[in-house]
């Protein structure tokens, strides 16, 4: 397999594979021995990396990014587009991520839209509250992830929404 570049958070790892040995991998020139010791069930694995044990969950999101979860933390791994395509064939795609993606504001969970705080065409700053969704008896303000303009609003006040329902579209500046 040819080499590839992995990106985790903001760090890049230039990855080299050994042709004959599956378990030997070099990251930025540093060798790692990776062994898959156990599979717990749906996408949960126990790995030994240089004998260090890690129980991780591996899933692929809707954008073909590999997500590795470890100790309650999620790591998103970015690779080239070509690699993503191959990947999609083999790993189960996770339930789509919720919340904000690009300029789309999605419902992070099922609930009811209590209040809409902006109007179409309005300019919003990063962090501004856009609308309030109530779930499990609590009101949650959804905030803008970017500075931009409200392109369209897809829901009305008092409307019940499913998880991941598109609520609003923003046009980032």
């Amino acid at each position, binding site marked *: 397999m040819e080499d590839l570049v992995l990106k985790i958070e903001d760090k890049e790892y230039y990855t080299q594979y050994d042709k004959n040995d599956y378990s030997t991998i070099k990251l930025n020139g540093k060798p790692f021995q990776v062994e898959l010791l156990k599979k717990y069930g749906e996408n949960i694995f126990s790995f030994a990396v240089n004998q260090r044990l890690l129980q991780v969950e591996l899933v692929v999101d809707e954008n073909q990014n590999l997500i590795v979860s470890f100790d309650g933390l999620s790591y998103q791994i970015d690779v080239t587009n070509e690699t993503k395509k191959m990947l999609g064939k083999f790993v189960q795609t996770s339930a789509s991520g919720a919340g904000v993606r690009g300029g789309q504001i999605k419902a992070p*969970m099922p609930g009811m839209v209590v209040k809409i705080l902006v109007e179409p065409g309005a300019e919003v700053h990063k962090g501004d509250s856009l609308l309030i969704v109530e779930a499990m008896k609590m009101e949650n303000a959804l905030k803008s992830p970017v500075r931009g303009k409200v392109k369209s609003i897809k829901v009305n006040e008092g409307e019940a929404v499913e998880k991941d329902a598109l609520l609003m579209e923003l046009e980032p500046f």
Partner: protein
Amino acid sequence: MFKKILIANRGEIAVRVMRAAKELGVDSVAIFHEVDKEMPFVHYADYAYKLESETPKAGYLDIQQIIDIAKKSGAEAIHPGYGFLSENARFSQACADSGIKFIGPKPHAIEVMGNKTKARELMAKAGVPIVPGTTEKITDINRAKEIAKELGYPVLLKASSGGGGKGMRKVFKQSELSDSFDAAQRESLKAFGDDSIYLEKFIENPKHIEIQIIADEHGNYVHLGERDCSIQRRHQKVIEEAPSTVLTPELRQQMGEVAVNAAKACGYVNAGTVEFLFDKNKNFYFLEMNTRLQVEHPVTERITGLDLAKEQICIAAGEKLSFSQEDIQFRGHSIECRIYAEDPFNNFLPDTGVIKYLREPGGKGVRIDSGVETGTEIGIYFDPLLAKLVSWGKDRLEAISRMERALKHYTIKGVKTTIPFELAVMKHPEFRYGYFDTGFIENSFDFEVLSKMKAEHDELIAAIAAYGYRIFRGSQVPITNSKPHTSKWKQAELMLRRQG
């Protein structure tokens, strides 16, 4: 003692009460709505009856139906748990009217303490220190503005018949009052069916310290020390401990006596909690009395050795307390982390889903009170509390290090949980040294810490990801799920023994 009791609740607290009943040789009756049919608490009971109701929640609040089931099942008493009908005076009264013992205080005590205004009056009379504020129920924003001006900002808005942080808002200046008042009224109306609001002086960043008391029907009152419940998000407790780092034995004694006086003032029977705000100068003010078992009761159980749920049942059965104030001794330190299905990386937004994998920690000094198992569906109908993890140590640092190792091993896949946040709190210097107050999450806790926890393992995660890509590409996973052929090993072993 009763032969059979009904538990008018669900989730972890229903299981907890049933455990107490089983140890007393008392059969438990569960009630459940169809959506809870597969929840562990239903199957932990000895008997289970289905609730018929329009919404899942309505069933657990249906006083008449619950009493009918109690009668049909032959239950002699009802334990309400916390939430739902636990602080509903009408329910306590309805039980009494039906000849069923309510495992909790008499209606009068619930009613008085459930009404913030009446409670403040009574407490003031009993010599319990209270926070400056009004005794007036307010629904008019203009009246609210007047009072806020009198008290001086910051002020606190509270649902006058509320609890659990719902309908509560802090207001720092007049320009924020109107919006906050609206929101508090909306929440209060939905949660309690009453939109009247109560204003008081806001004590900035106090500690939340509460005293557990217990009383029998024969006039015996005992206090069981304090719990420090200052780590809160959204005015709701998330981590609790006993004892508190800031109390001296003298102050504990003093607050204990005040709490007993508060209980006596309303003729309290059964287990209850008197909550105080505790300011930087070690002044304490009555906040409210919870007339029921608290979520965080296990930390008190752990350091006193008592079983509060069992004591509750025994008291309701008319028994005298088997201990007096002098018998209460505290040993070591205990911490509870509430495990919520919430996303700490996103403002503790509740999460839903199916728990597809669950692994709980165990071993010395670790207690789990759980309401879920692998396969449990976490829906939107109820509060997202999955379980409680309780650690004990001979001192606070041991309790913390034990909690850390337990949290690290606690694995819940399928829903986001508060575990990473709680792990970060255990590592937080201010928490470790005991300098924290109810403003901890807002003022002291840097959520960036959670991202930094990631950096620690970057390289190892990259190596796994690299390995993962190769596997997925070749569609070739070099793991043997099948065990090595045993007879080969066995044959070898047996041969060796024959020779040996």
